[in-house]
């Protein structure tokens, strides 16, 4: 029972980070219809940038902020250089461009920072765990979860209450109508990419704090795909629930199934789950069901 509770808590906390990254993914899809397969590399870039600032001696919060700024710039550049030219192209072409981007970014990250595992040194969060009754939680997890939740709230309220956020919502809802009331769709696309870069960067930084930072953090960024499929591709609450659910499921599988199927159950389980889930409920929990006509 204690094991169950502990894996559950860890799962929820890691899932919070996934939810943050998944939010960025859903945002791009909602606003511009781009199905982004480069999310893993976006997490990597943000994480490495903030790690570099941190090792230079910049305080953690400030380096996180700086990585947000750089993520913002990179997001806008990526959209303007690559994605902007693909508006109206077939879906497959756009997806494959994001795949190409993912290789491009990954190669550059490996060139600059090499493939060795790096850690935040000195550790950002204190190492001794916190006890809640029988449950023991590492402080890294707790703080990461809190940070992810705060940012989720910030992003969601950005959508609900600010002018830019409302413009983005309007474009996501009906692009033609949004254009007719003077919202610049190109601006919205660029903003969506910038926000996705920022969310992924924060997510990557937090993930890097947990296990150290190497290329496999990019793989964790890929885990947003099962999360968004579970929640439905264009649903923001779905992304949050999906992220947390995937985190929980991953940790439960790691704790309970590992003895039956030794090896990488923890890494594979989300993808296996996703393949089966798609067979039964392809539009996720809250996604829009598209009705097609000839």
């Amino acid at each position: 029972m204690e094991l169950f509770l502990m894996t559950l808590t860890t799962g929820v906390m890691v899932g919070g980070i996934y939810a943050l990254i998944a939010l960025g993914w859903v945002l791009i899809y909602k606003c511009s219809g781009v199905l982004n397969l480069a999310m893993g590399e976006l997490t990597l870039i943000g994480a490495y940038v903030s790690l570099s600032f941190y090792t230079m001696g910049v305080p953690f919060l400030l380096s996180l902020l700086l990585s947000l700024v750089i993520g913002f710039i990179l997001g806008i550049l990526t959209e303007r250089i690559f994605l902007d030219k693909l508006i109206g192209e077939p879906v497959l072409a756009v997806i494959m461009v994001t795949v190409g981007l993912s290789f491009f970014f990954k190669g550059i990250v490996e060139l600059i920072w090499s493939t060795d595992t790096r850690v935040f040194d000195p550790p950002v969060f204190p190492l001794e765990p916190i006890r809640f009754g029988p449950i023991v939680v590492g402080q890294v997890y707790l703080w990461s979860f809190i940070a992810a939740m705060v940012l989720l709230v910030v992003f969601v309220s950005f959508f609900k209450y600010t002018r830019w956020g409302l413009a983005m919502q309007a474009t996501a809802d009906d692009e033609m109508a949004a254009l007719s009331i003077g919202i610049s769709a190109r601006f919205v696309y660029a903003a969506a990419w910038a926000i996705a870069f920022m969310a992924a960067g924060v997510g990557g930084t937090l993930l890097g704090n947990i296990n150290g930072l190497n290329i496999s953090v990019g793989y964790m960024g890929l885990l947003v795909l099962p999360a968004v499929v579970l929640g439905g591709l264009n649903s923001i609450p779905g992304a949050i629930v999906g992220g947390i659910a995937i985190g929980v499921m991953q940790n439960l599988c790691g704790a309970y199934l590992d003895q039956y199927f030794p090896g990488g159950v923890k890494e594979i389980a989300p993808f296996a789950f996703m393949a089966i889930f798609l067979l039964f409920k392809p539009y996720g929990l809250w996604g829009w069901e598209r009705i097609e006509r000839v």
Partner: protein
Amino acid sequence: MSTTYLPCGVYHENYQQDHAWWQTRFIKSKMVLLFFFLFFIIPWVSDAYWLSICNLIGYTVLGALGVQLLIGFCGQVTLGHAAFLAVGAYVSTLLVLEFPWPPFLVNWGLAYPISILIAALASGVWCVLFGLPSARVKGFYLILTTMAAQFITVDFVITQYVSQIGGRGQAFSLPPGTIKLGPWTIDSDIRVYYMIIILVIVCVIGVVNLLRSRVGRAWVAIRDNDISAEVMGIDIVKYKLLAFFVAGFIGGIAGAVWISSLAAISPEHFPWFWSLWLVGVVLIGGAGSVHGTIFGSIFMVVVMELLQMAVIPLADTYPKLLVDFLFIKESAFGLAICLFLIFEPNGLAYRWWQAKNYFNLWPFSY
């Protein structure tokens, strides 16, 4: 009809003429020249290094042919084809190494060819298994399930379980002389080259023939609009699964053939990168054309080799470059896909068609 040139414009009188393979004497003689080029001139002029590159090109063509079939002709995007190559390679290796063959089969050198066939069938069935979701989902969702195929097959089943068979550890070594094809032992690049080139020709001819049959037309109809295809009475589930089977079959052949030029196989030979590489080859060559696959394979392999050649002289001054070449390659590959999709979405096959048209209509092309 056996004319020397086709007139400007289409003057076919029946479908047989329209679908004929080699419509003019000119094309026939081109094909004979190509045959001589492939079978005599290339082995004659190239040294071991270039032969190994030719083998790599052949392997890429075989692997990408299945992807081309799925993406270019049936519209089912796959991002996990390396998994099916891996299934083919592993089934064939395990059969050659572990299966208690009757001695006469081994003596006649039939063990390996039979294993190729079984590997191709197994890979086709495995591919159908992961193609099953295509009955219900399409587009992006199908991309995700094929991605899952890659992770489940290579990173989980093969790495964790298949590699344990026989207690050999992670890599299965193939001692020289294990792989025999009839009376020949496949132990040099030149023999691998002949085997691969024959298989490439057989597979390409097979696929092209399949594409001009009822099956191929059904696939193209599904690609263009699956709902109207269904309305027209095409059993789309059946034909989609058939496409997955054929693609997996060819992938299995590719994997099983490739083991003949390797000293050992391990899961690292079939990473996710390789799946995407195959898709990149198809897109750069031009989706929807079989010769585009070949152009794409040649282009990608040769460009990467040239890149390597460019890096080696620089290595004296920047030794780090040599270590980081893999990363440069990755970046260059990603950038190449992006640029091709943005500026040349129809791929190299379209340029080829343009050039051909220009000369066909010369001097009155406009």
